[in-house]
Each structure stands twice: as C-alpha cells, then as structure tokens.
C-alpha cells in the first residue's frame, strides 16, 4: 500500500512539472491548437472538394482528435526518457525507490493538459465550422471505448519508452520512423476497413486503429466499421492488459540490459 502511495506521489509530481511548465510558457497553445486545427481543416476541405459523404469529414475530425493522443504518447512519454537523460535527470529517477511506470504515468497525465486542449479545439472546430453531427445515444459507449483505447495506447507508449533506456537517440529515430506509417495504418483520416481485411487486421494491433474505428461506429453511427463494436472493445481491453504487462516486462529487461552494457546513464548516445 505504501509502495502504491509512493508511486502515485511520484506520478503526481512528474505530472505537475508538465502542468506548471505549460502554464509558464504559453507559446505551446498556438503550436498545439492552431497548427493542428489547420491540418485537420485541410483534410476536411479535400473530402469536401471531392464530394465525399459528410461522414468522411467527421472521420477526419475524430482522427484529428485522436492524433493528439498518439503524439503525446510518442513524444511526451516514450521519447521522454531520452530527454531526461539529456537533461541529467534520468539518474535521479532510476535510483529512486519507485516504479519506472509511475514516472511514465506522470509524464502521460501531465501531457494530457496540452493534448486535451488540442483535442477540444479540433472538436469545436469540427462542430462549429464543419457542422459535424454526433450520434448522441452512442456517446457514452464511445467514451468507454476511448478510455480502453487510451489504456492500451499508453501501455504501448511505456513499451516504447523502454527502448529509450537502452538505445537513446537511436530509439528516437525508430519512433520517428513509426510516426508516419501509423497515420496510414490507424486510419486517422479514413475508415479502417478501406485498408482491406488483411492490412486492417494487422493494423488492429495498434490500439488507436480499433479505438478510432469503434468510436466512429458509436459516436458517429458509422456503418463502415471493420469489426463489431463489442469485438473491438474486447480486443482493446486485451491489448490494454497485454501492453501493461509487456511494458512492465520490457522496462525491467531493457533497464537490466542497459545496466549491464553501461548505457543507462551514458549521455550523448
């Protein structure tokens, strides 16, 4: 119990840094809201110019909302161990009597402030400017799916973070490589089913792909879903559990390997 309390304290403190830093340097508001909103609007206008059904515009808006969380996981959490090492903080975290997951949780929760604002701005843009219509009876289910997708996504982020313990800058390159293909495979801007069954099935290992697909089916009453919502929810729950345990395992394995190879606290690598 005391261990849990200590880990929660650590997570709260790490989250607090993000919140305070965000409040003291407000330039991020422009970069994290205006620019992504422009990108999302661009996709909507493409669909509109092509004469696509209006629900495609809604897909893009939801995709834009979810992209924010993916970027938070990639850069705000997974890559963060690299920056902590660069700043000289990693030693302090690694020798503290707390779980590495509590630090990552703190980073994720702290980053939620910026992510949530970015998401809300895109959502408001969609509702006000592009007249996106939501299926109100499905919103509660959509929120539940969203939480499941987030649990799985942040578990995946913790797994990725473990790579940074060992590979440092090298892992950053891999995350950069992962960023763009994920935009394609997750169907941020189009229905997942349009990838074809095999590719869509492979893409389902990435939590946002199924998450977005299920949220579209529930929140937008979309008929273009890849799998039935209960199946997608069950897979997401499975992914959340699997990624949590895999992340814990990988963090331990990578930390031990880094300690064996002397790379854990080696800067500039």
């Amino acid at each position, binding site marked *: 119990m005391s261990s849990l309390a200590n880990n929660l304290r650590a997570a709260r403190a790490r989250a607090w840094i993000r919140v*305070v830093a965000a409040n003291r340097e407000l330039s991020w508001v422009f970069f994290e809201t205006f620019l992504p909103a422009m990108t999302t609007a661009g996709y909507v206008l493409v669909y509109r110019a092509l004469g696509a059904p209006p629900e495609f515009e809604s897909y893009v808006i939801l995709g834009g909302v979810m992209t924010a969380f993916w970027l938070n996981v990639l850069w705000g959490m997974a890559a963060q161990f690299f920056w902590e090492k660069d700043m000289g903080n990693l030693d302090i975290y690694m020798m503290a009597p707390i779980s590495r997951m509590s630090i990552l949780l703190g980073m994720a929760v702290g980053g939620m402030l910026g992510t949530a604002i970015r998401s809300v701005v895109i959502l408001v843009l969609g509702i006000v400017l592009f007249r996106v219509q939501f299926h109100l009876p499905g919103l509660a289910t959509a929120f539940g799916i969203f939480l499941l997708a987030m649990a799985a996504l942040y578990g995946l982020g913790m797994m990725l973070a473990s790579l940074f313990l060992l590979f440092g800058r090298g892992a950053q390159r891999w995350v950069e490589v992962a960023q763009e293909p994920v935009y394609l495979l997750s169907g941020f801007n189009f229905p997942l089913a349009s990838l074809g069954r095999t590719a869509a099935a492979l893409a389902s290992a990435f939590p946002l792909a199924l998450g977005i697909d299920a949220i579209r089916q529930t929140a937008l009453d979309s008929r273009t879903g890849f799998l039935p919502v209960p199946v997608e929810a069950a897979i997401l729950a499975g992914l959340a559990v699997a990624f949590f345990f895999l992340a814990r395992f990988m963090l331990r394995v990578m930390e031990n390997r880094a300690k064996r190879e002397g790379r*854990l606290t080696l800067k500039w690598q």
Partner: protein
Amino acid sequence: MPPAIRTQGLTRLYRKAPRRGVPAQEFRAVDGVDLEIQPGELFGLLGPNGAGKTTLIKILCTLLFPTSGTAEVCGLDVVKDCERVRERINMVSGGEPSGYGLLTIREQLWVFSQLYGLSTAEAMSRIDRMLDQYGLAKDAGTKINRLSTGMRQKMNLIRGFMTAPSVLFLDEPTLGLDAHIARQTRDFIRAWMAEDRTRALLLTTHYLAEAHELCDRVAIIHQGRIRACDTPENLVAAHRGDAVFEITLSGLDGQSEALRRDPDMKVSRLDADPAAGHTTVRFSLADDAALPGALSRMAALGGRIVNLSKHEVTLEDVFVKIAGQTIADAEKSSE
C-alpha cells in the same frame, strides 16, 4: 549493524565491439575493489578523472551492474536487492545540470522529494529548513534556469540531504565551484554528517586537500584499483620519513620537464614561469641524503637555486608516491 558499504573483488569492464578491422577492446574501469565503510564514516575516494570513482559509485547506486564481484549497501546486494538499496541511498554529482528550468528551487526540490515517499508537509518542512541552513532561503523562488553554478550545487546537495539516506554518495561535490562556495559545501557536508552518526557518506574527489580536510578515511584509487586505504593522517604518517622539498630554480631554459624523469625524485608539482624565468618544483626523495645528488643533476641542467625549503608530507605527495604520477598527469595520460 552491517557495514554501510562493502565490496569484494568488485570489477567492471567496458567492452567496445569490433568495428571495421578494429578488434574488440576491453577497458577495466574498476578492478577487484575491496572496500568496507562503516555507518558514521565520511569516506573519500581519491583519484584522478578516469580512475574508476564514478563507475564505482554508479554500481553502488544501482545504476550499473558489476562485471564480477559483489557490492552491498546496508547489507543489501546492489544487484539482487536493488529496490531495497534505493530506499536507503541518494547521490549527488558535481556539476550536475539536473532539474527543470521553469521550476523554482523550492518546487524542484519538492518534485524530487516525491520520489522518496515524503508527504508534502514533511518535504516542505525539510526543504525550508535546509534552504535556510544553506543560505538559499531568499532564492527559493528563483527559477532553475537562472541559478549560478554554486546555487545549483547547493540545491543539488539539498536534494541529496533532504531524503535522509542511510548512505549518501557525493561524486565530485565541489567540481567547478569557486573557493568560497566549495568551503560552504564542505561545511554543509560536515553539518549533515554530524546530525546523525549512523549515516555514511562516500565522497569522490580529485582535490587532495578536500579529502584530507573532510574525510575520516580515504582510499586512493588509480586505474580502477585501490592503491591505499587509511585515515589521511595515517597515510601521511606512513610516508613521513620521506623528504619533501620545494625548490625554485632559474636558468633551466625549457629543460624543466626533464626533472620529471629524474630517477630519485617524485615530482608532485612543477610550475614553470617563463616570464620570470623561474621554475618551482615540489618533489620527494627517499631521504635527505639523496638531496645533494638531486641538486647536482638540477645544476647539470643549468638550474640555479633561487629558493629551497623542506616541507611536511601531504596527501598530494602520498598520491604521487603511490600512483607514480600527479593527479594532473594521471588525468592527462588517461585522455
């Protein structure tokens, strides 16, 4: 009560993989180190950069695995019981750039206190007391990105002290500090140790005078091996029979470096002043009887005596005697 720190045959190798025709290389950073440090002890690890001090500390802080041998902190194995070891330790490095620039000193310290399970009330009480004690109270609201090196190091020390570890590791705590702040830092260290005589502190330094002034015992580490371990007084006393001289010569005309190669002289300091045409050399001899021979060899190099004095042996002289070179020379040769 178990020893605060115990290592047996502790060894750490770094391996560099073979690449493009260059064979694999192996570097022995720590080599068969046996140490035992008791609770209440302020122990100094003395050696040049690259001697293995930081590697040893990283193993003891659970940040690095040893290649062989064992290391225990408070009776707990640093590899098998690393979680429990972490509850009992903390570490501060000199010149440490840690922290988040947008936070204030007080906020930063609170954040780090939360990694050790302190309640906010307890943490703030300790932080405020230590900020006051270490003369940082008026700067508590200053952001980290505006701190001078000295202020930052004081903050770092408070980070280490405030969690009240059973064993604290200080890696070069006065590195890069001016004389005044370095003295304050040494005072903080002494005061923290005096608060609780069950605490142990392992300090690494390459400042010999600092080790002499602060430490109950010191180990001289060179090329990964412990070469000597005792109280500073005993180490100096063991070499008291040595004759230590300081001589100022003129007329060496660029030949001063040749003095380092003299077979009988162990040179611990050599300062050439080309503008004045003087060279000052501190050296030790096996005994006073060796002095006339040394002086005649200096004369053969063209040196004329400006000043000659005999001195008490210091830790610096002991280091030269044991390691065969000065700390500065050892650092140059390891680069």
